[in-house]
């Protein structure tokens, strides 16, 4: 079997080669330009952020030895040689961990409820009036752009120290995040059922209740579970500003250099996050089948 390879005449080939070289050169130039601009931005950023490589190199040993220290008990032994001593405060920590989970649960549920109520006004296809959509959208945007912990800082002053501030901060942030996601689901919903219901003379509320909600609940629940997962992480640091949960214990341990406590609390947090991730993933798979996982 022979394959005929046609070779172009020299002249034509030269023209093609030149054109190819030119195209590649142009692309390379653009890439180079992009790299230079990016490098300049990085350099500027490095100066702005007071990056000092010498500090890093001098103290990088500290970073490594920090982990060495948090894995060492007071008596100089490795932590896993004496688990009872390492996890000495497990009753207290489990209680704080339970509080953390409760904060994220209550916060997520309140946030999801508000998001549920608001998202129909924010969605393009269901909003009763443009001005309402605009207002609700800006409101949700505000709630999700301001970080949860900033809300927590302010709420700690308004509502006093304790988990209440954390719950409300998480609730507000979740309202913003879930409201956007929920309204996107509604925007993707099939509008034919809505038309069908409206043609029977139903009110806006009935249209939402009987035409939209049945289509979107699975998606809502999936996003709410995902949000719960994120909120568990978030609630674990709420204690840093005095808004309850395990973060309080952690920040005290880190600031007071109770090294082995730091690793013990981190371990409990990581394990909890793992367990929650796996459980919610499993739950989402069970409830809504594989396609709703992402």
């Amino acid at each position: 079997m022979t394959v005929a390879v046609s070779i172009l005449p020299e002249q034509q080939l030269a023209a093609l080669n030149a054109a190819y070289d030119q195209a590649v050169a142009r692309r390379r130039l653009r890439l180079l330009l992009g790299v230079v601009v990016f490098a300049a931005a990085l350099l500027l950023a490095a100066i702005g952020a007071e990056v000092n490589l010498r500090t890093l190199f001098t103290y990088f040993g500290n970073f490594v030895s920090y982990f060495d220290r948090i894995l060492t008990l007071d008596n100089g032994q490795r932590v896993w040689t004496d688990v009872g001593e390492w996890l000495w405060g497990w009753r207290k920590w489990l209680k704080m961990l339970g509080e953390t989970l409760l904060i994220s649960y209550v916060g997520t549920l309140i946030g999801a409820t508000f998001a549920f109520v608001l998202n129909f006004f924010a969605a393009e296809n269901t909003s009763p009036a443009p001005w309402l959509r605009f207002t609700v959208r800006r409101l949700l945007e505000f709630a999700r752009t301001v970080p949860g912990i900033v809300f927590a800082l302010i709420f700690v002053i308004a509502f006093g120290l304790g988990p209440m501030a954390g719950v409300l901060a998480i609730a507000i942030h979740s309202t913003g995040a879930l409201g956007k996601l929920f309204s996107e689901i509604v925007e993707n919903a099939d509008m034919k059922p809505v038309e069908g219901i409206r043609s029977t003379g139903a009110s806006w509320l009935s249209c939402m209740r009987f035409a939209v909600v049945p289509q979107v609940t699975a998606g809502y629940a999936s996003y709410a579970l995902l949000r719960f997962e994120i909120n568990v992480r978030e609630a674990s640091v709420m204690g840093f500003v005095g808004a309850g949960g395990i973060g309080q214990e952690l920040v005290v341990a880190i600031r007071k250099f109770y090294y082995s406590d730091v690793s013990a609390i981190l371990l409990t947090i990581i394990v909890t996050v793992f367990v929650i991730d796996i459980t919610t993933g499993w739950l989402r798979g069970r409830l809504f089948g594989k396609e709703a996982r992402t």
Partner: protein
Amino acid sequence: MTRRHEVDTAQLRARYPDVFDRPASARLAMPAMIVAAFAILIYGLVDLDFSPSRFLAGLSQLGWISLMMIPPDPGTSLPIYLKALGETLSIALLGTTLAAVFALPVSLLAARNVVPSNILRFPIRRFLDSIRGVDTLIWALVWINVVGLGPFAGVLAIAVSDFGAFGKLFSEAIEGADQKQVEGIRASGGSALHEIRFGLLPQVLPVIAGQVLYFIESNTRSATIIGIVGAGGIGLQLAEQIRVLEWQRVSFLVLMILVAVAAIDFISGKLRFAIIGRRAVA
């Protein structure tokens, strides 16, 4: 007419018993779940010291605070705030870049189609998972212990926590890449490195670039909060002003953050479209 209708229902009921008489477990599952959810909610509210009086007192307090926030006013410290904002943006940019640079090689090791052996891949994946399980704020606290207070600790905190996230995302992008190009390179006699450089990277780089840009965006938000624990940037100013109850400055700082985040969103959205085209943006 009515009578016939009734007969029809009875017949249908007899013919499709599983549609009309669903087992009690299926019918009760939803209400039971809702009741359980609310029972936990009530328990939570009680356990977390929610009381109506406290809530109302807090709300009125919050109302006062909001009133005192108007109008937003930076006082005389506008230059300081602008510098802090620049610092925050620098932290986000540097931290994300560092994370991406370090995560790329590791993500290759964590991808199934590059490293088929489970023995190596499994510990790397768990390692990345553990890093992601720890919040950026916690990393910031750890780095403050190592390099001292200041924005540098923030850069390193963002770099470490994003390293975990990028490792996972990049390795998923690599696993989603088309194997045909890789096989083509192998067939023409390329080494393993050639396969990665010419077979995989051209496919995954645009995806990765999009993800990195998206993270720079979301890290602008993270960078604002790590300042709260002392890792530099505008969060430091914000936390200080909240603690001394200078509400006009607080609202000004929040506005600054909102504007900055919106600007970064806009720019990185444009860049993302330019790099990977409109369709690939998830």
